[in-house]
């Protein structure tokens, strides 16, 4: 992973006695890895997930499995303590870590976990079946790129069953993230230990669970590719050591004192935190620029938040002089704004007030994202939530410390700083049902993991084994000799062990209700088989879902998306046998009305809304005994009921696909002409910039002059559309 090999590494003429010890330690690390993997996986056959309590998976994992996870961690740390990198071993350890952390629940459960993942399956199935989208069914159809992508690939390779894809997507996605991340890491001025530890942390700190088969997971991959290409081939050629500021004259440079120390720390000479950019010819950079443009387009069509972060990170890199494509943020911004204006019109035209309500509502976002998520929950679930926040805060806090430690060493990590700060820009953007803080953490991870690794291994290159004896080094015994890395590795091991323990707790902390059981899927199959028309699903909620933003915790709408309607019934907590509300709602649904409940859904209501644990069994018993209600399907995990004599009305027709819901305004045709021309001019401007020598950017002026009126026209059209269409 390191770009430059140390000269010491390259020239290794004779086997030294330390080589024998090195080989022995390598073998020991490999053996530990095999032993840890066996220890982790072999006791898992006897695990009964049904016995899990509010802490989720960790409460049923055997002690040997946890010990196995610890051994896997220690084996990696032992490899880091070796004097040189053993790449094969390190890669094997990261692969094992991905399988261990991100594959354990998948291996234990028969179906893909996480109800939200099943809705993605519903969107994909909808496109496969109807060959188009329907903007009025769900806001996510406004950015259908990812669903179309998966639907196309599945159809092209003849895979008709999406469940294995759904199930194994998380470990696979995490592996794919490492590919561009590797490219980001290799341009940094750091030791191989810091880089490999950062890659390892990127897997272990990613407890957010946004890596399931979903648009945001795919767009995140594109974001990483985008950043990797930018920092590898589009940096400035004159990134030298930063010189002291012009204001610091020779006489003031001699002054010392607290204030001057702060000044030096901020503005004093620093080494860039990145290695010189790899050389590439103009032709290659032209091709790469085309690919960047393609990535922006595809990312914009696939997810609504990620293109904003692509724009912001590119702009941030430009601002700190780590990206030479000054016009690219404009291109990305124009593409994003145009997409929102032209393609997602169905979404925003009905929600103008809501959009502005979310904009800038930072305080509410903070509350909803953190504290607001922990009200009324059971103590165990609340503990898991608290632990999530603690892990996020610790990771970010250590990242800041790592940044400061590098800065104290005179290294200016601008790329990492930008990637760390950019995700905060999305805070005021949209409130996302209070999930935005998780997304921010997710987007901070590439930089945060790197900076945490810097906290333990801050050096830009390996410290020499032997120091000059005339210089007194504090704690010299620890910091010289072949074992000089051991203290740092030991400290990192403590953090890594805690992090993996935290990961196994919080990632699967809600497993009691986040798992999807085969009966849950079967329940929805039964409903689609029993009726031909629209299915009115009635589901029980302990709180008013309009206030808490709840949805059924089931694999709802995983196929036949347009046929389902959802109507909540607020549970009468005092009397589970009171079915009047349920029957009333079922009557309103007409012939296709079903009442559905699943064990995961009931556990969710118990753990997060404080419903009595015996509420659901008593309600189910009352439903089964009631003469007005027929049991369509029932087992321990899921049950479906309907009226014995449902009313014939209302029987609404199944909605037809409505496409992207594009709408026009008087100025729209002009906008459709200006927009491609503007993008063409901006793109040509960047291509021209690649061919100009440094310092001659004034030659871009003709294109700039051409772009400004076009840009204003496009902005005017976008504003006009927003005002006219409602």
């Amino acid at each position, binding site marked *: 992973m390191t770009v430059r090999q140390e000269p010491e590494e390259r020239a290794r003429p004779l086997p030294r006695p330390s080589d024998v010890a090195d080989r022995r330690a390598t073998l020991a690390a490999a053996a530990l890895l095999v032993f840890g993997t066996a220890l982790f996986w072999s006791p898992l056959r006897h695990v009964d997930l049904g016995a899990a309590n509010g802490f989720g998976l960790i409460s049923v994992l055997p002690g040997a499995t946890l010990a196995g996870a610890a051994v896997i961690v220690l084996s990696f740390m032992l490899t880091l303590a070796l004097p040189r990198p053993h790449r094969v071993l390190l890669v094997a350890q990261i692969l094992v870590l991905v399988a261990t952390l991100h594959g354990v629940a998948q291996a234990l459960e028969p179906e893909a976990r996480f109800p939200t993942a099943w809705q993605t399956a519903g969107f994909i199935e909808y496109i496969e079946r109807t060959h188009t989208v329907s903007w009025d069914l769900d806001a996510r159809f406004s950015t259908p790129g990812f669903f179309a992508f998966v639907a196309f690939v599945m159809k092209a390779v003849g895979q008709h069953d999406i469940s294995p894809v759904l199930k194994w997507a998380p470990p696979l996605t995490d592996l794919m993230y490492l590919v561009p991340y590797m490219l980001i890491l290799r341009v940094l001025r750091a030791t191989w230990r810091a880089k490999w530890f950062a890659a390892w942390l990127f897997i272990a700190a990613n407890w957010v669970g946004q890596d399931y088969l979903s648009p945001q997971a*795919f767009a995140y991959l594109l974001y990483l590719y985008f950043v990797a290409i930018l920092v590898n081939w589009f940096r400035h050629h004159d990134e030298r050591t930063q010189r002291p500021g012009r204001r610091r004259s020779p006489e003031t440079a001699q002054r010392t004192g607290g204030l001057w120390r702060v000044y030096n720390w901020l503005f004093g000479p620093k080494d860039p935190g990145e290695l010189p950019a790899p050389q590439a010819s103009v032709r290659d950079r*032209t091709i790469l620029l085309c690919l960047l443009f393609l990535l922006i387009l595809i990312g914009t069509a696939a997810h609504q938040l990620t293109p904003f972060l692509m724009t912001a990170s590119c702009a941030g890199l430009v601002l700190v002089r780590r990206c030479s494509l000054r016009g690219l943020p404009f291109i990305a911004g124009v593409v994003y704004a145009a997409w929102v204006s032209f393609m997602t019109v169905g979404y925003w035209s009905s929600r103008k007030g809501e959009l502005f309500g979310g904009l800038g509502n930072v305080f509410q976002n903070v509350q909803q994202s953190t504290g607001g998520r922990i009200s009324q929950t059971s103590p165990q679930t609340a503990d898991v939530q608290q632990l999530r926040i603690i892990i996020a805060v610790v990771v970010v806090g250590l990242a800041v410390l790592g940044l400061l430690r590098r800065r104290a060493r005179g290294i200016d990590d601008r790329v990492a700083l930008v990637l760390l700060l950019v995700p905060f820009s999305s805070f005021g953007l949209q409130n996302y049902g209070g999930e935005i803080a998780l997304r921010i953490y997710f987007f901070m991870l590439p930089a945060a993991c790197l900076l945490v690794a810097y906290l333990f291994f801050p050096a830009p290159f390996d410290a020499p084994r032997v120091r000059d004896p005339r210089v007194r080094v504090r704690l010299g015994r620890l910091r010289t000799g072949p074992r000089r890395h051991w203290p740092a590795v030991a400290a990192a091991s403590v953090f890594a062990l805690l992090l993996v323990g935290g990961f196994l707790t919080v990632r699967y902390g809600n497993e009691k209700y986040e798992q999807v059981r085969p009966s849950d899927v079967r329940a929805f199959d039964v409903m689609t088989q029993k009726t031909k028309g629209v299915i009115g699903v009635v589901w029980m909620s302990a709180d008013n879902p309009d206030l808490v933003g709840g949805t059924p915790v089931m694999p709802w709408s995983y196929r036949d998306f347009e046929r389902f309607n959802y109507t909540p019934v607020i549970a009468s907590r005092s009397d589970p046998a009171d079915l009047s509300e349920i029957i009333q709602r079922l009557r309103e649904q007409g012939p296709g009305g079903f009442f559905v409940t699943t064990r995961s859904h009931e556990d969710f209501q118990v753990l997060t809304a404080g419903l009595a644990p015996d509420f659901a069994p008593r309600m189910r018993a009352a439903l089964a005994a009631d003469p007005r209600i027929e049991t369509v399907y029932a087992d321990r995990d899921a049950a479906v009921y309907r009226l014995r004599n449902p009313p014939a009305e209302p029987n609404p027709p199944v909605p037809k696909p409505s496409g992207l819901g594009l709408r026009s305004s008087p100025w729209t045709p002009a906008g459709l002409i200006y927009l491609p021309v503007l993008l063409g001019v901006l793109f040509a401007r960047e291509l021209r910039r690649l061919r100009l020598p440094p310092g001659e950017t004034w030659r871009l002026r003709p294109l700039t002059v051409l772009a400004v009126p076009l840009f204003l026209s496009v902005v005017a059209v976008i504003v006009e559309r927003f005002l006219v269409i409602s």
Partner: protein
Amino acid sequence: MSLPLALLLFAAPAAAWWLLLSGLDPLGRAVVASAGGFAVIAGTAQVMVMADAWSPFRGVLAVVLLSAVLAALSRVHRPSRPPDAPREASAPPGGHQAPMTSAASVHDLPRPRRREDDDEDWLFKE
């Protein structure tokens, strides 16, 4: 059976990007090629769904065709200028219109890597 087929589907555009980016180092080239593979396939699917022309069969054809075009572009090299050749001999970049006679010289004279500014000066020194 689907997994090898899927790999094959991604391999075609990725290989085309690999051929196209001959000047990069192997690791960077491989990673960028994988990004290009995603971009071509996802782009095809998105265009199909947005243009109301959903047809997986034609989509696969389009992917193969795009890959072929990219691979063909990689074969059309801009000829590198011999050290003391007159300025007129150098063809403009853009690839497609490069004369075949000078393309042959690329293979005849394997030369060390060009300096960065050699590529750039044709635009502004004339």
